[in-house]
């Protein structure tokens, strides 16, 4: 249970720590994903818009080049001469004009050359195919050029192809005709633009794809997604935001830039960048963050574990110490390793155990010199402070010839013999519920019926006397085998009313009994030497012993301090107690 709680405390700290770190890590990843993702899309959108601007300016550049070269060409006097032939039916020769047109195409690197008269009637076309004599005056860009008498550039569709077309007046010195040059916008153009801008580009209306840098294989899918994008465009939209398209397995950010052109439907340049490619650095970043996070998490877990252990280990040590104390080892102390709450707890614990030990030591001290029962009774407060009159039995015991023995044995051996002896005596007394009140050097004084009152204290005292004799007899057997002379003892028992209570100054107060019976008991014991008896009891004792006690001789003997002799009876045995 304690271990389980300890483990759960550690777990709780550990789990809380880990959860916190994990939450921070996940939050970091989430926030990163959100921020960087937004940023990536914004950057990509910005890139697409820039590309759109670059592209628009390239288109403008092309238009300017086309206008410049066409104007230059239109100023060529030879061209003017060729144009002027149409004024004279005799000199007008469409084939010659067309072949001149071919030469201009090659000079300028354009794909279309048309020549009209000043009213817009087609005079010649290269490549051939356009019917001559038809009026182009109503078609762009010629209409605007006729109206303005100046060069005009626009984007038109010719035979399902997209052309950047310029119409420039030929002056001689007034307008004598118009030169029209067309530069195709086809796939290679889109591919070149892609090389410059790194974005895919397509030119298309809602229903027709004119040119693109899209790989041939992806084209159908791209056209499908682009058509959806164009269909969703607001009609008046001038520069919408890029939209995210799913084209096959790839996600594209696609910007539709309206292109000014003269077509039946609005023309758009679709500028597309790979959304997935734009997010690739984000994913790389996320992997790095995740790796760093994992390292951090591992570190944090380790730290958490160490922290948990640093908290629970002293607790565990304390618990160990408590269990040690529970087992009775009051000398055990918990180590105080830190100057924190745990250290305070350990030292408080130690103080508590110190207090317990002190009390236990006192109890032991009482026990050693008096009796555990007395000590316990005193400590528990069962002994009235005022004292009381009690009838008790008092047992005195003495080693006969002790002085001779003391001289024979060295001190250590003597004490050893004495200790073994007293152990037997105390055991015998306590076996009958008596308490050893006093050690007299070579004997004891024991009380029965106090402080623990009992009705049969007389018989208990008698049985204890027999017990002492029996135990000493067994001890003598052991002592004899080690060469120590046997111990001869005498035991006297008397009963009577005494005053019992705590006697002595405060610091040295002890439980004791006083009264004549105590002295008489001592006298009875002293008579054993005289009568050569082992146990003598007073007449009062003998009168109250049951029939099973075996009594021996009796005698009236004078004693010190008494005018009249007292009657003592020899106690021999008690078959049940033997």
């Amino acid at each position, binding site marked *: 249970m304690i271990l389980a709680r300890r483990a759960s405390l550690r777990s709780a700290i550990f789990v809380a720590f880990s959860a916190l770190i994990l939450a921070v890590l996940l939050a970091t990843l989430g926030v990163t994903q959100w921020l960087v993702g937004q940023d990536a899309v914004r950057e990509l959108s910005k890139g697409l818009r820039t590309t759109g601007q670059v592209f628009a300016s390239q288109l403008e550049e092309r238009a300017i080049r086309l206008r410049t070269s066409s*104007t230059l060409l239109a*100023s060529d*006097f030879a061209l*003017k*001469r060729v*144009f*002027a032939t149409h*004024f*004279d039916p005799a000199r007008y020769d469409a084939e010659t004009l067309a072949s001149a047109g071919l030469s201009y195409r090659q000079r300028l690197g354009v794909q279309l050359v048309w020549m009209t008269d*000043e*009213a817009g009637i087609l005079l010649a076309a290269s490549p051939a195919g356009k019917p001559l004599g038809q009026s182009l005056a109503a078609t762009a860009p010629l209409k605007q050029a006729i109206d303005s*008498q*100046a*060069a005009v550039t626009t984007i038109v569709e010719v035979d399902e192809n997209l052309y950047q077309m310029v119409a420039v*007046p030929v*002056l*001689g*010195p*007034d*307008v*004598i005709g118009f030169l029209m040059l067309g530069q195709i916008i086809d796939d290679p153009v889109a591919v070149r633009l892609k090389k410059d801008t790194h974005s895919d580009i397509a030119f298309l209306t809602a229903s027709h794809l004119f040119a693109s840098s899209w790989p041939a294989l992806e084209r159908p899918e791209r056209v499908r997604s682009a058509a959806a994008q164009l269909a969703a465009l607001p009609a008046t939209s001038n520069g919408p935001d890029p939209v995210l398209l799913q084209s096959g397995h790839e996600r594209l950010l696609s910007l539709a830039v309206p292109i000014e052109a003269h077509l039946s439907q609005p023309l758009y340049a679709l500028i597309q960048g790979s959304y997935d490619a734009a997010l690739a650095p984000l994913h790389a970043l996320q992997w790095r963050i995740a790796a760093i996070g994992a390292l951090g998490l591992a570190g944090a877990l380790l730290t958490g574990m160490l922290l948990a252990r640093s908290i629970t280990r002293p607790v565990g040590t304390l618990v160990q110490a408590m269990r040690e104390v529970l087992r009775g080892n009051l000398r055990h102390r918990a180590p105080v390793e830190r100057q924190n709450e745990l250290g305070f707890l350990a030292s408080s614990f130690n103080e508590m155990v110190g207090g317990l030990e002190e009390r236990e030591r006192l109890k032991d001290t009482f026990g050693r010199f008096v009796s555990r029962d007395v000590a316990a009774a005193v400590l528990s407060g069962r002994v009235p402070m005022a004292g009381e009159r009690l009838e008790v039995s008092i047992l005195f015991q003495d080693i006969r010839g002790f002085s001779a023995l003391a001289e024979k044995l060295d001190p250590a051996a003597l004490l050893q013999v004495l200790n073994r002896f007293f152990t037997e005596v105390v055991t015998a007394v306590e076996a009958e519920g008596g308490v050893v009140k006093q050690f007299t050097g070579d004997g004891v004084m024991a009380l029965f019926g106090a402080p623990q009152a009992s009705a049969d204290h007389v018989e208990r005292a008698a049985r204890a006397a027999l017990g002492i004799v029996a135990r000493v007899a067994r001890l003598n057997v052991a002592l004899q085998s080690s060469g120590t002379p046997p111990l001869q003892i005498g035991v006297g028992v008397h009963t009577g009313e005494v005053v019992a209570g705590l006697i002595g100054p405060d610091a040295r107060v002890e439980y004791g009994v006083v009264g004549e019976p105590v002295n008489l008991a001592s006298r009875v014991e002293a008579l054993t030497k005289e009568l050569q008896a082992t146990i003598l009891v007073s007449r009062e004792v003998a009168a109250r012993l049951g029939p099973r006690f075996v009594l021996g001789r009796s005698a009236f003997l004078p004693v010190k301090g008494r005018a009249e002799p007292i009657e003592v009876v020899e106690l021999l045995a008690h078959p049940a107690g033997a």
Partner: protein
Amino acid sequence: MPGQFLNRSWLALLGLTLMQPAPAARSVSGSVTAPQGSPIADAVVFLQVPPPAPAGGQHPTALVDQVEKTFVPGLLPVVVGTYVRFPNHDQVQHHVYSFSPTKSFELPLYKGESAPPVLFDKVGVVKIGCNIHDWMSGIILVLPTPHFTVTDANGKYVLDDVPDGNYTLTVWHARSNVKPEDTARQIEGRDDVANVDFTLTLSPARARPAVHGSRADP
């Protein structure tokens, strides 16, 4: 188109409206204005009379000078059969040309007075330019009559030495939206001094394209 006024049908019409000349000395004057009343300069007012047959191979002559890379005058009315010389008084050479069906010619690079005169033997408008200087532009209006004049800055004109008889008086302007034949006004023979005012609507003057717009050498 300014270049379109003297087309073939107009010339045919011109032929039909010719009247017999009568020797006399009278004058016709008046003004040419826009509908709002602003004067129109450089309008050519002419009487439609047949030109006198060149006497003994004598042709009238006229001159379009080239000064500071400009044709002077910019508008030159002549009677059909006139020889026009194009002296060049600039320090640079010029290459005068015309692609006009009325008179197509070229005077390749020259300076001074070395260019031969050009005979304008057909009635119509001849637009002249310089191959070297795109902005140089001029008009020679070849008329079927010696009786013509040009309005001044105030749009006024005076046509002297008008012979007796009934004539048609016509006005022409390079930017007129009105066909010359539609401007024709009858002059009665008994009027000593006739005052005839014309109203013309002009196309807005158009700035020439930038590459043609500078008279100065860069």
